[in-house]
Structures are given as C-alpha cells and as structure tokens.
C-alpha cells in the first residue's frame, strides 16, 4: 500500500512544475484572471489620469479669480455690466425700429423712403438714448487700460518667478539670483482705479439724468401693439435706473484683498455661464453653455430617435413578416456601422443645406424658427445623432420585446384582445424596463458622441436663447465633447485651459457612468417577473 502511493500520486497529479508555490494550472488561472481584471484597471486608470491632469484646474482657477479681483478687473466689470445693460436696451430699441419699419412697409404699404422718413423722430430718440452712456464709456475705457496694465505686471512677475524656480531646479543659483522680480503692490496700484469713485458717481448721475431727459421725449408709436413694447421699454429703463445705487454700493464695499473662497473655483466652473478663453481681459471657464449645448442636441436627437427606434422595434418584433425581418434587422445594424465622422461630413455637405432650404420653403413658414440662416445648428446635429441612436435603441428594445414570454401574448388573444391592444397593453408594458434602459443607453451614446457635434452643431459657445421658444433648435451651440476635440490640440500643456478641458472630460465621464448606472438599475428593479 505504501509503495504504490507515490505512483498513484504521479498518475493523478501530472503537473508538478511550481512557480511561486502555484501549480501550472493555477498559474494559467491567475494569468486569465489577470486579464479579466484589465477592465477594472482601465476604468481606474481613466479615472486616475483624468483627475491627475484635471485636478490642478481648481487651484489654478482660484488663482485666476484672485488675480481678477486683485488687479481690479472685478471692480471695473461692475461698471462694465452697467454699460452692457445699456447696450441691451439699445438693442431693444433697434428691434422696435425693425418692427415699426415692417409695419410701415408691409401693412401700411409705404415706400422704403417714406417709412424711413416716418421713423426719423424715433431714430433721433434712439440715437440720443444711445449717446447717454458716453460718460460711463469713457470712464470704463480708461479704467480698462489701467487694470490691464496691473494684470500684465502681475503676469510678468509670475513668469519671472517661474524662471527663477526653473533656474534653481537646474542648480544655477547665480543666474537665479540675477532674475529680478518686481513685486506688485496691489494696494498702491489700485489707488488710481479706486480713486475714480467720485468721478464715477458724477458720471453715473449725469448718465441717469440724461436718460431721464431722453425718456421724457419718447415718441408715441403708430399701433397699440408697438406702443405696448415702447411702454415695456420705458419700464425696463426705469428698472435699469433703479439698479444704479446697487452698483455704487458694490463699488464702495469692494475690497481687493477679500480672499476668493476655495469653493468658488468649483462653483464658477459648474455654474459659470461663460466659457471664454484667450481673452485680453479675463478668461472664464464655465461649463453651463457647453452642458446646455450637449443636452439640447441630445434632447432633439432622442425626441426623434425614440419614436422611430421603439416603433421600428415593435414593428419588427410583432408585426413584420419573417421575410421583412430578414432584411430590416441587418439594414438597421448596417446603419450603426456608418462611422460618425462620415455622418458629420454628410451633415456639413448635404443635410445642413437641405434643412435650411426646407426651412425657407414658404409652405413651412408656420414652423417655429423657420426660416433660419445658420446652416449648422442644434437641429442638424440632432437629426444625425438620432440616426446614430436609432440602431442602439432598436436593437436593445427589440431584445426586450423578444424576452416577453409567448404565454402573455396568447393569454391576451384568448381573452379576445386585438393585436393592437395586445401590443400596447401587454407586450410593451411587460418590456418597458428594457425599453427605458435602451433609451438611456441611446442617450449615453448620443451625449458622448464627438465628431457629429463637432462638425455640425455650429460651434458657437453661448447658451442658446430659450426665449425664442421652440425655435431655439435652430441656433448653433457648442458641446462638451466638441470643445475637448476642438481645443485640446491647441492648448499649452499644464495651462489652466488644458486642465479645464480635462475637467470637462471628468464631467462627461461621470455623466456617462451615471446614465449607464441608471439604465442598469431600471432593468434590474422594474423587470416584471416572468414565471
């Protein structure tokens, strides 16, 4: 018995090679297991490297905002905002002029010259109103130069500091000491700027007096409808004037030394309404315009893709004959194989122009926003993205419909329900969780899509004007994916702009993970148990 034991051991255990105490089979198992972990590692690496490059943004942005305050740019922007609001009012007036002009030429059928003659009084009024801002404008342009000079000094100082640091790092202490750093004394530098406060108060008083004077001479407009607008203008102007004391108190209480709270570096990114880079004045990194752009394009895409995708899935799964199924399914799969850059090119070359031409057709003029002139806009990009999302939604929704047991359908028929009733009341509700998750995954695909929006969304960094109602879809936007693709190639590595793009990437990453997560939850939690 004892003699045969090693022999049987040999028979059973063929692999006796051992590495790190593991048998050959164990090694293989570990090797395959290692490969399985790769996806976890990749996810971790993505997170790590996005944060590695992006995390520095917040420190730099805080610095950016601090300089904005210390160099007095913030102070001047209070006054500039006042000036900009005035510009908005003059724009309201020019819109009003256009409406009057249309009234004279189209409804009263006057020749253009006569219409212009009738508008002379109004033009005079508008011109005077426009000129009222002059005292403020002069002040702002003076102050702008001064503050820019301070900021420039600060930038030079930072550059010198960096130079010295680098020289020190290279071990050239002698050279490093020779770099002259002129510290910027903000308190001193700001004195002339803050010293203009009395001058500002005077200018502001003059400004408001002039507006009052001009407003008193406001002409009476020809129709009640236009008069309503004129009254609205007067009211807006009065509201504008009542805001003046607030500006003064802002200026008086302003203190350059007030520290910028750390959280503002984050909030100015998440809630910032401006993405402005390489500006001579102040760079802003606010993600709102990009986020809104991405969401608007996705919304239009889903609005088109969901009915088409789900409808097609229901048709193929419940209604179509086997022969139809045989070519529809590969056909739609084939659409998903069209590369996004080709779709984007199609949008630029064909669809943009075609949609614009369609919008200019007279029988479609009742559609809100038609006719429009921007060839590349939310609508163009949305239509193409819808075509990309349909195959995703179709395939997943069709799977979900397929998983509904036959018995459900048969039972429904047995009770005398029609096919339509069965589809609407039995099959679709039973697979609703699958359909919703299909839509969510379609949304994930659309929101992360780059090339189509980069080529076709128009790339204007601005929050679209929602006051236009549904016509908002004819405006150009920029998107989160688009901005990364467009600006990444041009930025200086390590600069705040570069890091800001990575932070946009982080936002996009977690947004897509979130959508994915919700889709999985929906499938798991709301599945109708079948059994």
């Amino acid at each position, binding site marked *: 018995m004892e003699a045969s034991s090693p022999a049987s051991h040999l028979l059973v255990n063929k692999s006796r090679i051992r590495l790190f105490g593991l048998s050959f089979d164990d090694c293989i198992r570990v090797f395959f297991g290692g490969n399985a972990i790769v996806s976890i590692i990749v996810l971790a690496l993505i997170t790590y490297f996005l944060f590695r490059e992006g995390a520095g943004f917040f420190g730099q942005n805080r610095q950016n905002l601090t300089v904005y305050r210390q160099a007095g740019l913030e102070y001047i922007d209070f006054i500039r905002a006042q000036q900009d609001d005035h510009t908005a009012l003059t724009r309201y007036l020019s819109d009003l002029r256009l409406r009057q002009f249309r009234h004279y030429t189209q409804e009263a059928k006057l020749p253009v010259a006569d219409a212009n003659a009738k508008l002379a009084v109004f033009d005079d009024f508008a011109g005077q109103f426009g000129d009222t801002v002059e005292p403020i404008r002069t002040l702002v342009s003076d102050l702008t130069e001064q503050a820019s000079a301070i900021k420039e000094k600060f930038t030079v100082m930072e550059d010198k500091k960096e130079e010295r640091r680098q020289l020190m790092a290279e071990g050239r202490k002698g050279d490093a000491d020779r770099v002259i750093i002129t510290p910027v004394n903000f308190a001193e530098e700001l004195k002339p700027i803050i010293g203009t406060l009395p001058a500002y108060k005077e200018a502001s008083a003059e400004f408001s007096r002039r507006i009052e004077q001009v407003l008193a001479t406001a002409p009476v407009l020809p129709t009640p409808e236009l008069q309503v607008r004129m009254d609205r203008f007067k009211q807006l102007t009065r509201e504008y004037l009542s805001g003046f004391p607030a500006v003064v108190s802002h200026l008086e209480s302003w203190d350059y030394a007030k520290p910028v709270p750390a959280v503002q570096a984050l909030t100015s990114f998440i809630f910032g309404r401006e993405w402005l880079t390489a500006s001579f004045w102040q760079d802003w990194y606010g993600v709102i315009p990009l986020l809104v752009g991405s969401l608007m394009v996705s919304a239009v895409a889903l609005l088109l893709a969901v009915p088409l995708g789900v409808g*097609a899935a229901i048709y193929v799964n419940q*209604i179509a004959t086997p022969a139809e199924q045989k070519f529809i399914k590969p056909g739609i799969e084939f659409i998903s194989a069209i590369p996004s850059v080709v779709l984007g090119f199609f949008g630029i070359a064909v669809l943009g122009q075609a949609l614009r031409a369609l919008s200019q057709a007279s029988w479609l003029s009742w559609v809100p926003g038609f006719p429009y002139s921007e060839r590349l806009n939310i609508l163009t990009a949305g239509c193409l993205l819808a075509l990309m999302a349909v195959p995703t939604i179709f395939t997943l929704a069709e799977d979900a419909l397929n998983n509904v047991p036959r018995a459900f359908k048969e039972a429904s028929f047995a009770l005398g329900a029609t096919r339509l009733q069965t589809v609407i009341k039995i099959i679709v509700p039973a697979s609703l969780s699958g359909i919703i998750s299909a839509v969510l995954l379609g949304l994930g695909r659309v929101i992360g899509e780059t090339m189509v929006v980069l080529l076709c969304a128009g790339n204007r960094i601005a929050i679209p004007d929602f006051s236009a109602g549904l016509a908002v879809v004819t405006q150009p936007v920029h998107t989160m994916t688009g901005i990364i693709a467009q600006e990444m190639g041009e930025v200086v590595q390590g600069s705040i702009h570069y890091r800001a793009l990575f932070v946009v990437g982080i936002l996009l990453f977690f947004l897509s993970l979130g959508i994915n997560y919700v889709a999985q939850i929906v499938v798991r939690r709301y599945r109708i148990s079948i059994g």
Partner: protein
Amino acid sequence: MPATHHVFRAQLTSARRREGFIFFLFGAATYFVLLCGAVVIGTIVVRGAGTVFQARAPFINTTFFTEAPESLHVFQYQGRKMELGDAAFRTFEAAHPDVAKGKSDSYVYSAGGIFPCIVGTVLLVVGSMAIALTLGVCAAIYLNEYARDGTFIRFVRLAILNLAGVPSIVFGLFGFGMFVIFFGWNVSLLAGWFTLAFMVLPVIITASEESLKAVPKGFREGSLALGATKWQTIIKNVLPYALPGILTSSILGIARVAGETAPIMFTAAYVVRDKLPWQVDKFSDFFFQGVMALPYHIYVVSSKIPQNEYTERVQYGTAFVFLLIVALIATASIVLRNRLRNRYKW
C-alpha cells in the same frame, strides 16, 4: 347584418381600422429609418464614385489610392483652365515661366490621393485588434471557464459594462494623459493602439464570452472525464470550437476601431505627414511615429477647407473609400455570423 357577412369574417370595425393605421405608422417609422440610412450611404456612394472610378481602363482612379494628398492649383493658362497637383504644378511652372503672372487658386489636400491615410488606418486597426483580442479572449476565458459567481466577478462584469459606455473622446483624453504625456510616447502608433484597444475591449470580451458559452458543456466534461487538465480541456476542446465565433464577432470591433476619430485625434493621428510609416531610421521608431488616418483625414478635409467643386472630389472620395472599407468589414461580420450559426449545431 347583410347576408354576405360571415360570422367569423374579420369586420372592418373602427378598432380594426385604428389598429391598421397604428401598425402602418410603426411600419412607416421602420422604413423611414432605413430610407435615411440609404440616403446617407447613397449620396456618398454616388458622389464619391466620381472620384474613385473613371471611364477609362483600369476604371479605378489609381492615383487616388496610391499617392499622398497634395495641394490643388487651379489657374488659367492661355485661355484654358488648368488643374494640377502641387508637384505637377511646379514642373509646369518651371517649363512655362509666364504662368506665375496669372491668378492661381490653390486648395490644400485636394489633389493626389489618400494612400498614407489608408496605410495608417490599417496599421492602427491591426495593432489595436491584436492587443484587444489577446486581452479580451483571455478575460473571456477566465469569466466563462474559471470564475464562479462572487463579489469579484460582479465587479468585473460591472466594470466591463461601464467601460462600454465611456464616450470615445474620454478614451482619447485618457490616452493622451497616460500614453502621450505620462509615458512620454508622444503622438504615436503605440499610444493609438492602446487607446483603441481599451476602447474596444468590452465589445471583444462580450463577443468572446458568448462564443465560449455556445460550446456545449459535454465537450468540457468529456475531456475532463478522460483525465485532461482544465488547461488541456480549454486549449484542445473549447477554444478550437469557439475561435471562429470569437473572430467573426470581433470583426464588429474592427469596424468600431476603424471608424472612431475622437480617440486618435490627440494620440495617434497627424493632419499631414510626408513620410510613410515604414520610412523610419530605426526599427523602434516605427512604434513611436504618428500616422495619417482615414477618419481623421475626413474630419480635416470636411472642416478645415472650404466646400467647392474642387475640394468636393477629395471629400466625397475619401468618405466613400472609408465607408466602403467599414461596410465591407461589417458585411463580412454579418455574413460570417449567419453562416457560422448554420455550421455548428450541437
């Protein structure tokens, strides 16, 4: 009720009419989608065919496939309108010095061909698929053959699922941050390979696992019962049957790798490069060079140059060639898959 109506005959009630109408709408939606796809493909094929094919033998525009992009010069010479590529224009100019006086318009990338782009795309696809298949098949073998359900495997599956949903531009950023900057590979083939491989990994893993699952349990049990080890079983009795399925399903991954632009924008693609990939000094330089790629070239020619009758040719031509390649890959995958389903029936 009129006598002609049989009791069991379908009656055209309002409910039935509504049903017909709604079903018609579903059908219309389906065919509308197919029509849109057909219009996109059709436009590009019809207008691109003008660049790719020609009326004379060999019927295919060989310059377009064998040369690098050049600037196109359009000018009037002795009352005739001439269109010449950059190199030809220079020789022509040398031969006829009076040309320089006349007005000449030039359009970048609009003459010559797209050979370097095709080469670059092929290199990118081959390299990244090699990496992705190795990693993906091994991972799938572990998941299907070794793993038992548990927290760890749940995590792995969750990671795969989430990885599939990460936007391609985020992969581009990641590849840029990790390979290009942190590893110092610069814009290179290697960086592009890994970025694309990681992007396509979930597709490969899922496809491979499905093929492995399709191999019947009896194959494994029979082998194990004969005394083979697990490894011998996998290599001799599972993989050979699963491999055709793995490869065909992975072709769809190829279509994705070839078609994506965003991940290679900052990791591997150059707008223009004079040298071809094999014109390198050292062998190792081969891996650390950027390449031109078809999708990126389409992006460049459709966004960076104006649209007119001269630039249109190269735009549609490139799009057509690209679409053709991707379509061939996709068709191959669909056809092979169907054939495979019929061949192996256990």
